[in-house]
């Protein structure tokens, strides 16, 4: 645009170097959610992976904790423009959950306790790019940040990292999740600044 904002200087430039376009760094961990925080009890909690043909894999909380988990350190980027650098998580790779699953699906709908959904290309969840996380900063994940378990897909805007995860449904064709129906982008790549649809 023509000109600039007179008197606006902004923060030191070093903070924003290497960030996706339009993002700024925050030290806090803001919470965004569309409704009340669901609190499933460990005895009721389960995670399912359902293929396009209806085959279901299912883990209880204790079974899930038996799966091999990995430490993940990553930057996260919220569509509301904050980024948090060097966050530390522990979780199970989605590759592990889908290992041996027979599917020709190209897409996934992640489903959460409380009814939240978000859609992703399956390719964004495989190849060491996505986890189901149960710990943040060495502690069990707080309910308001998605505990007991949330999806972690750090290379996409953070609304794709569904909190309170309970299901991954494999789909042959793409479909819109909650924010995607409410004006947000189908894929949400921060490097391409895919915020709104």
């Amino acid at each position, binding site marked *: 645009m023509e000109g600039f904002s007179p008197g606006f200087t902004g923060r030191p430039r070093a903070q924003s170097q290497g960030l996706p376009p339009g993002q700024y760094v925050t030290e806090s961990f803001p919470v965004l959610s569309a409704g009340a925080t669901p609190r499933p009890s460990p005895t009721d909690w389960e995670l399912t992976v359902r293929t396009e043909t209806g085959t279901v894999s299912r883990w209880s909380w204790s079974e899930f904790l038996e799966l091999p988990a990995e430490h993940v350190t990553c930057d996260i980027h919220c569509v509301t423009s904050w980024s948090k650098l060097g966050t530390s998580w522990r979780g199970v790779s989605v590759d592990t959950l889908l290992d041996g699953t027979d599917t020709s699906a190209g897409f996934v709908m992640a489903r959460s306790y409380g009814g939240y959904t978000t859609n992703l290309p399956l390719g964004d969840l495989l190849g060491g790019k996505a986890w189901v996380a149960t710990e943040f900063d060495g502690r069990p994940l707080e309910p308001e940040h998605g505990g007991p378990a949330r999806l972690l897909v750090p290379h996409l805007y953070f609304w794709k990292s569904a909190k309170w995860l309970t299901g991954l449904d494999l789909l042959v064709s793409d479909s819109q999740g909650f924010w995607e129906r*409410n004006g947000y982008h189908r894929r949400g790549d921060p490097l391409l600044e895919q915020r709104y649809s």
Partner: protein
Amino acid sequence: MSWMPTLVVGARRETSEARTLELAITGWPGHVAGQHVDVRLTAEDGYTAVRSYSIASSAGSRRLEITVDRLDDGEVSPHLVDTLEPGHRIEIRGPAGGWFVWRPTEPVPQRPLQLIGGGSGIVPLMSMIRTHAEASSATPFRLLYSVRTPELALFRDELVRLERDDAHLDVTWAFTRVSPAGFPTPPARLDRSSSVAAVFAPELGAVTYVCGASPFVESVTGWLVDAGHLADDIRTERYGG
């Protein structure tokens, strides 16, 4: 959605901490009450900063006004509250958001609306209240507004006037640090019982909108769910870490 050159055509101080900016955009499509816009500022060297702000003006007016509360360590809000003047230009992207919104034609069939705001969380709710009044909507509206002091309350005179003139609007004030002179109760933080007592009873099936700082929203929504309000009927918008 692309950036639109925007002219600041007016600025009104609301409190010592907050100001309303009246913005003019050629071809502005209008908004739905509750939506927000992204604001982009550009420094002399080309550096840009973007933040989101709720729209305060009514949908029916087709005017675009944002009310901004200053965050002391903020990068963008101090500039919007203290520096920007009419005649200056900024850039706007929006309107955005399809969830924390209300249209006078919704919901069908009609249900009451419970609005709960903490601090500057009142802003998107104010757009709904103004839209409700201008449309002469018969949807029962109830607002619970928690604020530290009368001086920091946004839109206080207007809310008092609208409550008097809009037969379907009821306002409950919760002053947490200082109550105004003559106010019936001493200042107190909202708690479980005062929150539950101030809202429509669960059996009335209201749709509830809660906006404020994250801990405020977390507490209030938790109390409402415990009191029998359906989680599916509660919509939230939060700010801060």
